[in-house]
C-alpha cells in the first residue's frame, strides 16, 4: 500500500459499518450492484454518495463508484493512480477513467455477471434528491450502461444511500463538530474584518482564509450578502464598501474530510439595527424550543408547526417585534446534499412526514419575521438529534454579532 498523505481520515470500522448498512438494504431490494456516478456539481455535493462509499474525494474531481453486493468496491477517477490511493485506505481497487467514466463503469460491471441483474444507480432521477430533482447521472454515462446491459434492470438506488446517510455514526458527528469549530473560527475572522470602508469581498476573503488555514477543504458552499437590511443571502460576495449600520448575513460551511456543518450568523458593522435586536429574542426562543423538541419520533411537519405556534405565543404585543411570525428552515448536514429538508419552498408530504431519528444531524436556522415583513432575523447552528432533545455542535453565543470597528 502506498504511503498515505497526512490527511484526516475515517476509520476502517466506519467503512465496514457503512458497507454493511448499504448491503443490507441492497439485499432486501435484490440489488446486485450500485453505481454511484461521477458529478462534481454543486461544490461536489452531487457526488457525496461516491465519497461516502469509497472515501475518495476532496477538491472537486470527478469520481464514480461501483459498489457490489458481494466483492470488491471500485473507485473510478481520472489520474486515479497518483491521486487516490495516497489519501485513503478504504478502497484498494482504484481504476483509471481517463474522463470516460461510463466505459470504466461498464468494464467493472461486466466482472459481476449482471447482464440480467438488477443494477442500482444513485441519482438516476426517478427519486428526487434533496437538491437534485432530476438526478445526477449524466445522459452519456447512463447511455453506456444501458447499451452494455440491455437486459439488466436499472433501478434508482437514491433512497438506499439517503436512508443510510440520514443517521450519523459517532465518527461522523465528531467530524461535523470539527467542521463547526472551523466555521466559528471563520465567523470570528469575519467579525474582525468587517469595518466601515472595507470591501464586502475582503471580509469574505478573511472568512475563507480562516477556514482554509484551519483545515477546510475547498470548495464549500457559502452564501453571503451585506447591506442595510438585506433579506436573503446571495451565493457570492460583492465589491460593495461596508458602512456603519450594515449587516452581513451568511450561511457558512466548512468541509472537514468532506463533511460540512453550517452556521448562520448575522454580523453588524458597529451598531445593531433596533428591530433586529428585538427580533433575535423571538428567534432565540423559537430555536430553543425546536432544539428541546428534537427527539426521535418528532416529524418535520410537527417541528414546522411548533415554530409557527411558538412565534405566535411569544411575540411581544408592542415594539418592532410585535406580531412577529416564525418560519423554520432545517436540512440535513453531512457529506453533501443531505436530507431531510424543510424550507418555506420544499415541503413535500413525504418530507413533512419524516420522523427524526437519533443521531440525525441538521442545520437548524429558524427565522423571526417582523409583522410588516420588513425585517427577517435568522440565526443557525448545526444540531444533533438525541433522546434528550437536540444538541448544538457550535459553541458561540446565540446572539447578533457586532464588529466593533
Amino acid at each position: 500500500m502506498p504511503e498515505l498523505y497526512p490527511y484526516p481520515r475515517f476509520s476502517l470500522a466506519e467503512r465496514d459499518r457503512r458497507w454493511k448498512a448499504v448491503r443490507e438494504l441492497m439485499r432486501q431490494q435484490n440489488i446486485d450492484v450500485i453505481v454511484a456516478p461521477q458529478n462534481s456539481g454543486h461544490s461536489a455535493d452531487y457526488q457525496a454518495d461516491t465519497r461516502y462509499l469509497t472515501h475518495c474525494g476532496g477538491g472537486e474531481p470527478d469520481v464514480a463508484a461501483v459498489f457490489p453486493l458481494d466483492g470488491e468496491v471500485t473507485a473510478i477517477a481520472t489520474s486515479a493512480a497518483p491521486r487516490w490511493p495516497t489519501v485513503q485506505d478504504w478502497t484498494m481497487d482504484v481504476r483509471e477513467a481517463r474522463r470516460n467514466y461510463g466505459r470504466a463503469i461498464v468494464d467493472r460491471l461486466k466482472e459481476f455477471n449482471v447482464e440480467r441483474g438488477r443494477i442500482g444507480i444513485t441519482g438516476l432521477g426517478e427519486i428526487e434528491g434533496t437538491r437534485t430533482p432530476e438526478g445526477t447521472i449524466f445522459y452519456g454515462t447512463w447511455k453506456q450502461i444501458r447499451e452494455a446491459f440491455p437486459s439488466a434492470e436499472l433501478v434508482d438506488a437514491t433512497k438506499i444511500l439517503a436512508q443510510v446517510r440520514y443517521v450519523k455514526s459517532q465518527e461522523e458527528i465528531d467530524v461535523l463538530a470539527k467542521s463547526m469549530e472551523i466555521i466559528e473560527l471563520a465567523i470570528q475572522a469575519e467579525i474582525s474584518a468587517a469595518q466601515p470602508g472595507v470591501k464586502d469581498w475582503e471580509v469574505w476573503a478573511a472568512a475563507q482564509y480562516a477556514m482554509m488555514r484551519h483545515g477546510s477543504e475547498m470548495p464549500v458552499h457559502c452564501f453571503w450578502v451585506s447591506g442595510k437590511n438585506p433579506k436573503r443571502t446571495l451565493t457570492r460576495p460583492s465589491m460593495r464598501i461596508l458602512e456603519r449600520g450594515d449587516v452581513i448575513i451568511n450561511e457558512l460551511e466548512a468541509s472537514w474530510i468532506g463533511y460540512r456543518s453550517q452556521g448562520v450568523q448575522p454580523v453588524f458593522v458597529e451598531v445593531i439595527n433596533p428591530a433586529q435586536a428585538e427580533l433575535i429574542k423571538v428567534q432565540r426562543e423559537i430555536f430553543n424550543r425546536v432544539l428541546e423538541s428534537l427527539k426521535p419520533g418528532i416529524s418535520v411537519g410537527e417541528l414546522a408547526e411548533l415554530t409557527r405556534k411558538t412565534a405566535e405565543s411569544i411575540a411581544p404585543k408592542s415594539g418592532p417585534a410585535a406580531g412577529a411570525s416564525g418560519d423554520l428552515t432545517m436540512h440535513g448536514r453531512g457529506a453533501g446534499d443531505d436530507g431531510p429538508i424543510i424550507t418555506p419552498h420544499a415541503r413535500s408530504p413525504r418530507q413533512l412526514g419524516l420522523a427524526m431519528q437519533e443521531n440525525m444531524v441538521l442545520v437548524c436556522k429558524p427565522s423571526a419575521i417582523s409583522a410588516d415583513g420588513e425585517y427577517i432575523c435568522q440565526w443557525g447552528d448545526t444540531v444533533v438529534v438525541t433522546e434528550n432533545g437536540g444538541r448544538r455542535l457550535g459553541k458561540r453565543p446565540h446572539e447578533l454579532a457586532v464588529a466593533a470597528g
Partner: protein
Amino acid sequence: MIPQLSLQERDRRYQKVRTEMKRQGIDCLVLPANTGRWEQLQGDSRYLTTIGGFATEVFTVFPREGDVTAYIFNRAAWWKQAQRWVGDVRDGRNRWGENAIERINELGLQKGTIGISGLAGLFRAPEGIIPYSSVKAMQDAFPHAKFVNATEMMQEVRSVKSAEEVSMLERSAAIIEKTIETMVENANPGVSEKEIYGAMVHTMLANGGELPTLFFLSAGPGLTNSSFVPTDYQIQKGDRIIDEIEAKYGGYAAQAVCPVVVGAPDDEYQRMIDISRACFDAILGGMKPGITFGSLFDIYRETVEQHGKGKYAWNHPVMHARGLGDDGPALLGDKDLERFSKIELQAGMVFILKPQVRAAQSKGRASIGDTVVVTENGARRLGKRELKLIVKSV
C-alpha cells in the same frame, strides 16, 4: 457590484452563436447547469448569460429568435439586478427538464431542432453534463422534436476571444501573480501546505478572485505532481512546491504553473525546468495566426530533443485553451493531438502554455507555464513575472 461585460460584447456573442445555429439548422439551444470541476463545466451557459460564480447553477434556454431565458435555483430576483444581459431570469429549482419544456413550449418549438450543448464531448467531460432524466423529460415532452449535440459548436464559438475577454483574462493573470507572491513569501520550513494554500486563496479573493477555482498545490521532496487537497505536511528545506494556479475574474480563468524550490534545487529538476522554459519560448515564438497545432507540437518535440539530448523527452500536456472553463482547443493527450493537428491558430485564442518535460530514465518530470494570447503579430504572455524556477532561500 460584480465584474460586468458590455452589452456590445453580448450582442457580438449572440450574433455569432445565432449565425452558427442558423447554419446548422438549430432552433433553440439548451445549455445545462453544472458547476462541477470548479465550475469549468458550465462555461457555455455563463458565456451567454454572464450569470455564475460561487457555484451558482444557471440553466439557459437560448432561442435563435426570441428572448434568452436563464433559470437559477432560487435567486432570480437578484440576478435580474446584478447583470444587464438577460432580462428573463427565473427561479427554476434545478428542475431543468421541466424548465426547458416550459420555455420551449412558450417559444412554440415543440417540433423544432433543439441543440444541447453538453450532451456529450466536453474536453473534460466526454459523457456530457446534462442529467439523463432531464434529457428523457424533454424527449418525452417533445416526441416530434429533433435533439442534436451542440457542444462542438459552442466550443468553436468560444475558442476565439474578444478584446474584452482578453482583458478579463489579463485581470485573472494579475491576480494569479499576486497569489504567487504570497506563496513565495509563505514558503518556509515548518509552514504547512494548508497554511500556504489558505494564504494564497486569501490574496486571490481579496483582489477580486472568485470561487470555486482550480488551484492545486503540494509540497515535498522530489515531487512531480500536485494533489487535489492541501495537507498538514510541513515544508522542509529542499522541498519542491508543485502547483497549478488559476484565479477567476468574472468567471475567466488564466493559469500559471510556477514551481518553487525551498533551498537549492537538484540538478536534474533545474535541467528539466530549463528545457521546459526553452520549449515555452520556442513555441511562443512560433504561435501566430495560421500555424497549425501539429506544427507547434513539432516545435515542442524538436526543442526537447535538441536540449534534452536523449536524457529528456516530451510529455502531455503542452497547452490548452483558457477562458470560462473547459475551453478548446485543448491538447491534453494523443487523441486531442490527432483531432487538432491540422487546425490553425487564430488571433484571439488564449492558452496556458506549459510544456512538460520528463526524464527518460526516471519518473522525474517538470513544467513551467504561463497564459498566452495569440495576436495578429504573434503571441504574447499575459503574465509579467520572470518565468523561471523560483528558489526560496532559507
